[in-house]
């Protein structure tokens, strides 16, 4: 049906797939958390000064820190909720 293609739901689904990380009404807690984590890490990796700030706190090289953040992005539930709250005092 031609009208199906234009109904709001299919459009939303399309947009959802296109813009990774956007939210929707049926988002569950897990997905919500994962999205926030992935967004945060992408921002940390992109902003070099923040990455440097973390690596000073943890005394790791910046590249190692970036790599760890990349790895955490795979499975943000395992350790990262902690990570975002781990306020690193330096």
């Amino acid at each position, binding site marked *: 049906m031609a009208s199906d293609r234009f109904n709001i739901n299919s459009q939303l689904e399309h947009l959802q*797939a296109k*813009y*990774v*990380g956007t939210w929707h009404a049926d988002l569950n807690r*897990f*997905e919500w958390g*994962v999205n926030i984590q*992935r*967004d945060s890490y*992408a*921002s940390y*990796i*992109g*902003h*070099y*000064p*923040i990455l*440097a*700030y973390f*690596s*000073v*706190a*943890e*005394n*790791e*090289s*910046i*590249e*190692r820190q970036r*790599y760890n953040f*990349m790895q955490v*992005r*795979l*499975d943000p*539930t*395992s*350790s990262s909720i*902690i990570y975002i*709250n*781990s*306020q*690193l*005092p*330096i």
Partner: protein
Amino acid sequence: MYLYSLTLQRAGGIVCATNGNFVGGKTQEIVVARGKNLDLLRPDESGKLQTLLSVDVFGAIRSLAQFRLTGSQKDYLVVGSDSGRLVILEYSREHNMFHKVHQETFGKSGCRRIVPGQFLAVDPKGRAVMVAACEKQKLVYVLNRDAAARLTISSPLEAHKSHTITYSVVGVDCGFDNPIFASIELDYSESDLDPTGQAAADAQKHLTFYELDLGLNHVSRKWSEPVDNGANLLVTVPGGGDGPSGVLVCAENFVIYKNQGHPDVRAVIPRHTDLPAERGVLVVSAATHRQKSMFFFLLQTEYGDIFKVTLEHEGDRVTELKIKYFDTIPVTTSMCVLKTGFLFAASEFGNHALYQFQAIGEAEDIEASSATLMETDEGFQPVFFQPRGLKNLVRIDLVESLMPIMDMKILNLFEEETPQVFTLCGRGPRSSLRILRPGLAINEMAVSQLPGTPSAVWTVKKNINDEFDAYIVVSFVNATLVLSIGETIEEVSDSGFLDTTPSLSVSLLGDESLMQVHPNGIRHIREDGRINEWKTPGKKTIVKVGSNRLQVVIALSGGELIYFEMDLTGQLMEVEKHEMPGDVACLDIAPVPEGRQRSRFLAVGSYDNTIRILSLDPDDCMQILSVQSVSSPPESLLLLEVMASTGGEDGADHPASVFLNAGLQNGVLFRTVVDMVTGQLSDTRSRFLGLRAPKLFSATVRGRQAMLCLSSRPWLGYIHQGHFLLTPLSYEALEYAASFSSDQCAEGVVAVANEALRIFTVERLGETFNETVVPLRYTPRKFVLLPKRKHLIVIESDQGAFTAEEREAARKECLEAAGMGENGNANNGEQMENGDGDDEKEDALPDEQYGYPKAESDRWASCIRVLDPKTGNTTCLLELQDNEAAFSICTVNFHDKEYGTLLAVGTAKGLQFWPKRTVAAGFIHIYRFVEEGKSLELLHKTQVEGVPLALHQFQGRLLAGIGPVLRLYDLGKRRLLRKCENKLFPHTIVSINTYRDRIYVGDIQESFHYCKYRRDENQLYIFADDSVPRWLTAAHHIDFDTMAGADKFGNIYFVRLPQDLSDEIEEDPTGGKIKWEQGKLNGAPNKVEEIVQFHIGDVVTCLQKASLIPGGGECVIYGTVMGSVGALLPFISREDVDFFSHLEMHMRQEHPPLCGRDHMAFRSAYFPVKDVIDGDLCEQFPTLPPDLQRKIADELDRTPGEILKKLEDARNKII
């Protein structure tokens, strides 16, 4: 309140670097991205790195790549940033700037998950560029050239794959076949659907090749194969006839060669023998060196070791991969191998270095090879090695970097004219206390004592065509000393100068004759030795002289001016006389312009506070062209000619002009533009230089005329990248100076002060600060000043490090194992400090270069240091035992005054961040100062339940922020005694400031909380807080109601308690307590208002309100992780606010930032910018083309000169 933001010291840290041929010609340049700055560097002949250009791009640069179209002579630069745009830049030599060739928008701005910009890869033949995000999106642009050989760019081709994380992207060298890009990808779609985590554990990384079909204009996934799960970095292997093509995959512990249809060739990366077993070895940066016949790779690991990787190959088949230990240098973010045999190492923290190759690692060394790779049941057999001294590289230059600034204080401890900036910089063994002084650094070449006190000094050449000066002439009260410059500098008597009288001026006249002016006459020494003397008439003496190569004007006592000119025969002829109304204070003639007979202007300063410009033209000789009255009698005059410039190596466009500079007796330097035709003076600027009247001398800087001003300290005025800069020199006060040129020193200065003759050169032009470095042991965290003794107390702590004793024991063991234990390390016991360069032999491996050995991540090493900043000596160093690390420090005077000033240090024992933040215990140590503040003695130690991250003195007691608890302690005999506490803070307290009975508490995640302490009820309560969750990194108290703070995302903001609320709270007998008890929504009843907001684009770690110049306005100075220092200056007048906000608006419109980020959007990246004007953008005004400058100036109803003056004034108010 409106603020003017200005960066004083640009960021020192480097995000990424690339090298190429950007200028064109044979030289190679390095482009480095320093966060929001893009710099072009080049090593000069002597191996010093020179900055050709530095541009502020107002955006976060994340990646750089360089490419060249086939057959072209010049490289283009591709920039990946947070602008959501791909920008291709070309360096223009004529204008000394980057030109934006293309700017292609592909997504939203900001550092987002799926917006490309994080990775850039170019096809080695320059036919395509891939820009990738860390998730999903990859775009390929095809590069080509049109009929006019201009670069063209296609619309983007998508190579997206959803649910993948990208680790690295690189262009594969496959000759002129279709371009191929390789990437390391990880598919997470399954792990997202599996909450048990099993799928995540099984996830496999893949190496994927994307092929760009140039014929079909389409990108396809060509090949994808599983790769080691530790893979993090790809390196292109040369192909297309030069090598086997394919890629090197750098993974944790391994380097693997991979190519389509080729079996993996794998070798292990050698490990340090003392590396804990659970730690991997990760490659952090890579560089490729290729020549016609061979190529090799340099890979650096996270421990600083560089390995040389070579491939044995027959045609396209790789038979062996060898990894050989090369050298160890501090960990880098990027390495660039230049064709001239240099290695530029951009360190991740601390100074960058330029190394020269001594060898290319051909000698025998530890080597891992794919041929000898052993696989056992536990995995692959590791290869071990010990780092050794540098064999293949030798360091030839350092580029200073303050990154990261951990803490900063602006104090005038040395009682100098301007305060010093004390910064704690660096990390681990490379950390230091750096004392910054505004001004240029000086390299003193020679100091020699003179017999008596000299009054003046000149240098003179024998011939106009000579490259170097021939004589230094020094005048005393009653004699003149002539020194000849050669291999050595020695006194001569055959120069023809009269040595029994003081001199007023010595100079070269004509092409090769010399002139000496003394009080009684002029002595003209012809080239053949004949001497012509001109005697003053009657009893008059000469008081002042002004001369250039062909003209001489003398002023006699009484105010008579006599003008001489050199005629065609080389005779000095009297031309004209002129009576001035009174004595002449000073005079000067401009140098003869190129291709002219004479200079037209004579400037004469009189004691009646006027400066007159007189004509020297034959038709209106000695006519007064213009008069300028000044605030105080002029002491010294200098006509400075600025040559017309159309850019080039240094400087933007500016027309030729003559500046009249006058040093006034009240210490002010007065600058004004002289009209080249009429001699009218316009556009005056003045600046206070010091307590003494400035004496002005001309000098040469980089081949251009510059000005030395000697006041109570010396200053140098010169043109740098199009700006006229007037900068103090970090040197003692000088009496008289002249430029100096010999074959040892091309552009030096010779000066006299007291009884000495000094020769020096000026270094690192363009810098704002020069630094004195005191090395420290671990990452410095904070420091305080002991006010009475002027000592600094620094706390330093490092995670994952061994304590000094453990390191020393390990080193001894190691040396013994190496069989050299018996000789030569007897005094190694004192060798714990890093940076003790004085016995290099003893300490073959300085920690500064090689880093500390890694310990397990739950180990901490920490120390408290008492430092005398004057000498840089550490008077006391307490290494904390038992896995404790210091995090906070303050000095405190308890009210019972038994011990006087005490030191409180907050420590944590066994702090761990992963997998969860845990701490075994927290302590507050109380130390007593002994031996006149030189040493510390532990009084007692109080255990607390968390990490005390903030300590502050408050009403004779100690306030401590321990996690979410604010607690007031009093001093007890054996421990601190709890007096009062408030547990209602949201997360963790990181800063405490106090003023009267108010306490301003900063929470790590929730901004500021304003508290009050009620003594009678002994209660601490929060009466106001912020409505915005700010992740606080720095805080500073501004006034009773105002706090300045900085957050983790790079914003600076000010919050203020509204006046009426503040009054209400102060007047309320309960101090707002009733209201507090009804707090709403878990917050305080009152909210502070944000009054200033600005995005710096860099994590600010320290803030202070201070004034950097005497008499200057107070401004807020900040220091950042990337090592930049900036200032926020409050505007005083509404008029200035209007002017600068309009200028900023026009600059935004007419001169959008280079990398495509919208300026307004950048400064409002997290919160809308509020009441801050970006001085860095305004200061780009002089780099605009002249017509654009005029256009903006017209819109503002001003002239470009007036705008420049305004900009200069604003800067001069800060520094």
